[in-house]
């Protein structure tokens, strides 16, 4: 990915350890993982990790950068997923990438509408208004049969993942497909947050009145944040439905999912791009670790009910701990660890 190194080189003194790190990660993700991965690794860990990372990345644009709290992320994922489903069903001649972009645009439009209350509301009140979006979308998808092609309880199945004759149907293919989409959108998101628009997002987050007084168009900035964030979250919904689960129902995009994405952002680090990935990694791996650990300690007594409970407790403790000790999340922890290592060497 040559694009990442060019603007990073803007900071002249050294070619940035971060740029090298990103390149290394991409080499591992594209070059090494596909050689050694098992289908369990792809299906249970990597693909959901990528989809959740992307959703968290989208929410982070809105909440972390622009400072607008949203509890409706999974509704935008649903909008993206169902839009992509309908587009591929009704306009089958469209290539898959076009379908995904259009689905993202539909989600962006939904985000724009959902963002209108943000022009008047702030913080907690805004969060409540995005909650309304969450419930409205679920209701709409259940209510209007056309949206799910009249399938019972709104269940939809993904179309084949084929791009320009290349099939991404198997577990590894779906992983690579997700990886590519996530990598592209991450680069775009990174370009966005380093652009003047990204700075305006932060200005509105840090001090809305001060932003207004120096000429930032606050209303437009907020709506743009909602639209761009929802675009990314919508595409994450497409990945979730098409690449990860393959069969989804509206109930899968519930408030729990929205909270999960918000927690990823909080744990990973608000206002950082890699925070989304760190947080998603933790959220995906945590249940697996807990179930292994639980099975080892408690043996057969550790059933799925206990697991889920433990998972919630652990997650709750983690969030409280992060909010108190490190509001900037895993991303800041990583920074500090890196600095300590550098000082020692």
């Amino acid at each position: 990915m040559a694009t990442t190194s060019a603007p990073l080189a803007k900071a002249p003194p050294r070619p940035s350890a971060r740029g090298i790190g990103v390149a290394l990660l991409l080499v591992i993700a594209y070059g090494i993982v596909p050689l050694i991965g098992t289908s369990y690794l792809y299906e249970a860990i990597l693909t959901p990790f990528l989809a959740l990372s992307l959703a968290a990345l989208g929410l982070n644009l809105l909440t972390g950068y622009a400072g607008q709290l949203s509890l409706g992320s999974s509704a935008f994922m649903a909008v993206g997923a169902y839009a992509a489903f309908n587009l591929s069903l009704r306009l089958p001649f469209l290539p898959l990438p076009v379908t995904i972009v259009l689905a993202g645009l539909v989600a962006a439009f939904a985000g724009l509408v959902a963002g209108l209350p943000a022009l008047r509301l702030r913080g907690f009140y805004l969060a409540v208004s995005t909650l309304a979006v969450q419930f409205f979308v679920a209701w709409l998808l259940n209510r209007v049969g056309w949206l799910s092609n009249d399938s019972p309880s709104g269940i939809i199945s993904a179309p084949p993942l084929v791009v320009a004759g290349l099939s991404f149907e198997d577990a590894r293919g779906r992983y690579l497909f997700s990886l590519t989409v996530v990598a592209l959108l991450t680069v775009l998101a990174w370009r966005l947050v380093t652009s003047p628009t990204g700075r305006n997002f932060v200005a509105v987050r840090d001090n809305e009145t001060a932003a207004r007084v120096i000429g930032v168009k606050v209303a437009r900035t907020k709506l743009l944040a909602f639209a761009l964030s929802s675009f990314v979250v919508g595409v994450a919904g497409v990945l979730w439905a098409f690449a990860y689960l393959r069969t989804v129902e509206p109930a899968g995009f519930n408030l729990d999912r929205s909270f999960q994405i918000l927690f990823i952002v909080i744990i990973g680090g608000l206002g950082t791009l890699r925070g989304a990935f760190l947080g998603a990694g933790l959220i995906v791996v945590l249940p697996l670790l807990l179930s292994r650990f639980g099975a080892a300690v408690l043996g057969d007594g550790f059933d799925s009910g206990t697991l889920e409970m433990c998972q919630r407790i652990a997650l709750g403790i983690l969030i409280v701990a992060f909010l108190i000790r490190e509001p900037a999340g895993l991303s800041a922890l990583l920074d500090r660890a890196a600095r300590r290592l550098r000082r020692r060497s």
Partner: protein
Amino acid sequence: MTGAPLLRVEALEARYGGAVRALSGVDLAVAAGEIVALVGSNGAGKTTVLKAVSNLLPAARGQVTAGRIVYDGRDVSRTPTDALVRAGLVGVLEGRHCFRGLSVEENLVTGGLGRGSNRAAIRDDLARIYAIFPRLVQKRRAPAGLISGGEQQMVAIGRALMGRPRLLVLDEPSMGLAPQVVAEIFRTLERLNRDEGLTILVAEQNVTVALRHADRAVVLENGRSVLTGTAAELRGRDDIRAFYLGLGTAPARVPA
């Protein structure tokens, strides 16, 4: 004062939340090239006047209920703030509101972007701001949330100057700052006024400082403008000396 003033406020009245009356008749005029101080005690309405001028009251659930604000010959009471900035009316809020998450330089750049400057103009303006506030040069990469109060005030003023204002509207630049820093900031403002013809309207609780640097002053009391005059005139008046400067006869003591 000759010719049409750059800013004219006439019989301005304003309320918050539809009920709380904040201003009930403020008149003031600022001619191009002057420094006008808006003085008065806490709650006299200084901030409200400045917010009304920048059309920021709606964001604070307030509204102008009567009167006119004329900037550069146009009634601007309904002009959006960002349009005012592009027309050269730029404000600096009370309490040095920096964008804490952005570096000093990014804060300054935001001011240029708000005006719609292109890259070259932003580079020139940055150099100019660093020349005006040399202290900011070594802090340019530091997050604005982590620099001192005085430096934050300089960032806030610098950010406004990045918008290439014709009229700079400042709210309490001295708030919470050491006297030397306040003096430095006011000297800088005076120099900008003298060398570049920048017109300044500054609300200030520190009347001594304000009257030392301003050409003229308007005194606000309970939401009304009660007195206007040149700074020298006002400095000489006994009641001003008594009430605001704490000189001469002791002011009426307000029970705590």
